[in-house]
């Protein structure tokens, strides 16, 4: 019991203390090492939550079956990204794109961002969750703009404006939820505590709850990158440092998704409220189809995978919108697989762009010949993200498609169409990137391959064999999601 609350405290304390220390320390080697160490100890603290007894949900913090999946995934990708970031940043320092002063800032912001995301996951208070997501957003805005080029500043500005508007709408939604809870729970703390809200949601005013959910879906949906509110996402991914693209795609989108899911559960607890399903299905399908078409015209490699993230977030939101044990299970699995695969791809892309000195797809060719490890790594990643067997994403997409066919055959048609369209675009780009006459620099890459291949190995393992306890757990969470 005590050890458990300690573990939760460590998840939050380690990043925030590390941020303070990293902001003060000079030197690349030392700070990059410390960054990895801090991420590693946060990951260990998160893992310990799996084995020890959970703390009782308090006024502010909560650990339950749903958020623990997110926390472990978050800290794991945070760890591998910090390893990738160490070698990536070394190259950026050499080429002078980052100065030592900005490096200090970068590492501190990285840990503050991890703090914000972890806090969003463990918070049991909808106000606190909002604050945490805002912290995570602001830190990523600063990191997207860190190169201070024209394009980076424009991307950061756009991200900042759209992100703030989204977050403002989400706050309005949060206030409305409080108003709905007020007559039932009375004034004060209780009306913002999520566990209390869920247990008494049946008595809330359904009309107010409906309006609140629409604000929350639009607000947090902006941060998930759902079309038509996605405009910030490709720019932010393309112009920031690649480790940030990896955590944006792999983690930050999940944080916003998690917030939407929490409120979906809340809405489902009230029998008279609208069902959130159709709204989420519509937004999910729109994002999927839109992104699938947009994939064809990309010329920038990071932008390409940013649109692919919109596509996959669309699929995940669609799956959770369908609801029911099977679709929720598939959505959850897809989310985990997407995080691992997409950040793995960004690790590869980061090194590729550094070696070739460009992000233009047209100038990158024949990677498997010049840089076999990076090239084949990228091939593995794209094969995985396009949904080919035997990798994990194939399985989750298969589950989503089959459960949709079983329940709403008509919805399955646009879904499959979108999937195939995206598949075509990715394979088309992949052939030119990985094969053919080599183009661009063939200098050997000083890359750290470990994080990339660790992610792909996990995705492959999950595609072939999912351990029994994990399946049982995911099923349990899927039932929670309703």
């Amino acid at each position: 019991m005590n050890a458990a609350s300690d573990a939760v405290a460590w998840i939050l304390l380690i990043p925030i203390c590390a941020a303070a220390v990293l902001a003060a320390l000079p030197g690349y080697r030392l700070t990059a090492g410390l960054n990895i160490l801090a991420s590693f100890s946060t990951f260990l603290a998160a893992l310990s939550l799996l084995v020890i007894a959970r703390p009782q949900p308090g006024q502010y913090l909560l650990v339950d079956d749903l958020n623990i999946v997110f926390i472990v995934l978050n800290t794991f990708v945070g760890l591998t990204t910090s390893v990738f970031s160490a070698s990536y940043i070394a190259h950026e320092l050499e080429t002078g794109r980052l100065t030592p002063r900005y490096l200090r800032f970068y590492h501190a912001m990285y840990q503050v961002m991890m703090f914000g995301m972890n806090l969003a996951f463990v918070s049991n208070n909808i106000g606190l969750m909002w604050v945490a997501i805002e912290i995570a957003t602001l830190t990523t805005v600063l990191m997207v703009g860190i190169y201070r080029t024209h394009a980076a500043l424009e991307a950061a500005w756009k991200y900042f404006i759209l992100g703030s508007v989204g977050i403002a709408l989400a706050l309005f939604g949060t206030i409305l939820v409080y108003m709905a809870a007020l007559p039932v729970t009375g004034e004060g703390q209780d009306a913002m505590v999520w566990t209390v809200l869920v247990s008494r949601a049946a008595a809330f005013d359904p009309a107010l709850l409906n309006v609140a959910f629409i604000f929350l879906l639009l607000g947090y949906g902006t941060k998930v990158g759902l079309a038509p509110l996605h405009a910030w996402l490709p720019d932010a991914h393309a112009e920031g440092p690649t480790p940030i693209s990896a955590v944006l795609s792999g983690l930050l989108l999940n944080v916003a998704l998690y917030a939407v899911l929490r409120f979906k559960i809340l809405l489902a607890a009230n029998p008279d409220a609208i069902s959130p399903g159709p709204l989420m299905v519509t937004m999910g399908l729109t994002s999927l189809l839109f992104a699938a078409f947009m994939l064809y015209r990309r010329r920038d490699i990071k932008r390409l995978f940013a649109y692919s993230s919109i596509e996959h977030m669309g699929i995940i939101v669609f799956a959770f919108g369908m609801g029911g044990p099977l679709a929720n299970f598939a959505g959850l699995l897809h989310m985990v697989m997407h995080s691992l695969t997409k950040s793995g791809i960004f690790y590869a892309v980061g090194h590729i762009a550094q070696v070739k000195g460009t992000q233009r797809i047209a100038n990158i060719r024949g990677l498997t010949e010049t840089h076999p490890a990076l090239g084949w790594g990228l091939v593995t990643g794209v094969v995985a993200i396009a949904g080919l067997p035997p990798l994990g994403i194939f399985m989750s997409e298969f589950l989503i498609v089959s459960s949709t066919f079983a329940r709403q055959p008509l919805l399955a048609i646009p879904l499959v169409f979108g999937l195939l369209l995206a598949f075509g675009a990715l394979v088309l780009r992949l052939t030119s990137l990985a094969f053919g006459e080599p183009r661009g620099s063939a200098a050997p890459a000083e890359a750290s391959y470990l994080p990339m291949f660790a992610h792909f190995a996990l995705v492959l393992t999950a595609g072939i064999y999912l351990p029994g306890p994990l399946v049982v757990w995911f099923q349990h969470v899927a039932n929670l999601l309703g």
Partner: protein
Amino acid sequence: MHNLAFDIAHLLAGGLVLISFMMLYQDRLYALLNIFAVHAVVLALSVAWQAFIQNAPHLYVTAVIALVFKAIIIPVALHRIVKQLGIHRDIETAVGIGPTMLAGMGLVALSMVLMLRVTGAADPLAREDLAFALSVVLLGLLVMVTRRNAVSQVVGFMSLENGLVLAATGAKGMPLVVEISVAFSILIAFIVIGVFLFRIRERFDTVDVGALDEFRGERR
């Protein structure tokens, strides 16, 4: 007494909506900043009044933050930035004033219809406050949409946040966490904005967001 309390709260919240409208048709940056300062003052009064009638002393803190930070420090700082950049001439509005005002009226009507309908059960003061707050939020959005200048977009965003503070204080007994967080986030947001404005000037010698569009990645 109750009626008077209600009327004053109503008056102040309504005043905030009116000032939001005034922002829509300002075509000079200095004027826009002055109107924003008035907006923040009215917000501070409204929050202080809520603190008084709800008997919630912690709301006075929010009121003071609104007054000192948003009505004085930010407008003064932005004045200086505008002066330094030498952009105190006309604002390029993306849409004409007539259509903007019409759209603003439409948004206010929308928020009244929506909020008054769904909050039938709530306390009348809170529900009218919420309807006004949504109007202010939407008008703030409209300011952001119709301006192309980075400084005026920031002002639009801050007036939007004023609407959120109005909503948060109108909701009876909302925990302090949120008020602090709102003020806090505004602070951070401002720092971010300050950094951005500084950097934008360094690189472009202009804060017209339209100019930034030239550098879109896909057109390289």
